[in-house]
């Protein structure tokens, strides 16, 4: 792994008027290879299955960063490149999301989340469907649509604070339970928060409401994460 100073030297050489085309390609490849981990880090923060496309976009982000990086500023190239990588990926996902949720339903999702949070704060337990409909002042059909849309949304924003939750431990128990063997590679690909949620639900046997409370999340967010995780595990099993 190169130091920040070494990366700067590569960029400095790249911008030298004497550099050959072959050497330019070589230097760019080296910088891109050096930042593959960073690209994958940002891809993992989004919950998507089009990883190959996003690696290409992340690479475009690195190339753009190479062109625009100011060597005189006291900022590591990786920090600057991270912003470009994130920009490329988030623009792509915003423009190419496979499921577009109507604005009215999006606003209902927010209303439902808020209503659920206030209900839990007041009653110290999750609402039932009917209680939530009353609390959110939505009819049943609107609530169905909002809940289904919530489950269908498998993109998680980098701005979502849950993405940055500090997860102190992973569940090594997976290694000792035969039933998880077929999906171990897929579990290894999960973000720390996702491994934590999976372990809390299926190893510690906690209910979604308890997980939400413990992690400071909303139950709908836990539900959405769990659905997404299980979909990926199933996808892994059917793909192998």
């Amino acid at each position: 792994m190169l130091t920040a100073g070494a990366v700067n030297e590569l960029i400095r050489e790249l911008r030298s008027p004497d550099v050959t085309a072959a050497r330019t390609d070589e230097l760019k490849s080296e910088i891109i290879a050096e930042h593959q981990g960073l690209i994958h880090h940002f891809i993992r923060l989004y919950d998507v299955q089009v990883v190959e496309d996003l690696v290409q976009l992340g690479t475009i982000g690195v190339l753009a960063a190479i062109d625009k990086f100011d060597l005189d500023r006291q900022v590591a190239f990786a920090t600057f490149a991270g912003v470009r990588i994130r920009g490329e990926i988030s623009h792509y996902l915003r423009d190419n999301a496979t499921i577009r949720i109507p604005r009215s339903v999006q606003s209902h999702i927010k209303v439902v989340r808020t209503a659920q949070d206030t209900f839990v704060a007041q009653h110290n337990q999750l609402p039932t469907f009917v209680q939530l409909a009353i609390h959110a002042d939505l009819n049943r059909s609107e609530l169905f649509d909002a809940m289904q849309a919530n489950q269908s949304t498998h993109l998680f924003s980098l701005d979502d604070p849950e993405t940055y939750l500090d997860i102190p431990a992973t569940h090594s128990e997976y290694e000792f339970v035969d039933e998880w063997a077929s999906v171990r590679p897929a579990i290894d690909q999960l973000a720390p928060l996702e491994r934590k949620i999976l372990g809390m639900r299926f190893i510690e046997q906690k209910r979604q409401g308890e997980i939400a409370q413990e992690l400071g999340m909303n139950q709908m967010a836990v539900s959405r994460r769990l659905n997404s995780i299980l979909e990926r595990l199933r996808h892994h099993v059917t793909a192998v």
Partner: protein
Amino acid sequence: MTEVSVCVPNAPEYLRVIRQIAMVVGAKADLLLDALDEGQLASDEAANILMKFAEPGASLNFEWETEPGVLHLRARTRCSLSHLPDLPATLGYAWVIISSITSKLEIFLENGEVHVDLSVESAI
């Protein structure tokens, strides 16, 4: 009392239908939100189990029943097996999931059909 029964072809594209029906029926049982979610998940997993053991060309049958706070599902399909294999070993992580989220789970062969009977309930 049977609330809803449905028969679908053995194809993954119908899983979404199964999940949606489970949600509607679970809402009628006035399940807590997490149980409502897990009623869908359990129905989904039951469908996957049937798909695994179904005879070629067999359709999948589902019947949901409710009582306050509880969702019951009886699912079945034609199956040519004479006995079921070791379920935890065969189903792997899917077994862990379905057995975790159900308060009752029975998977058995009867009259040339494999049955998955399960219940999901709100824990108050």
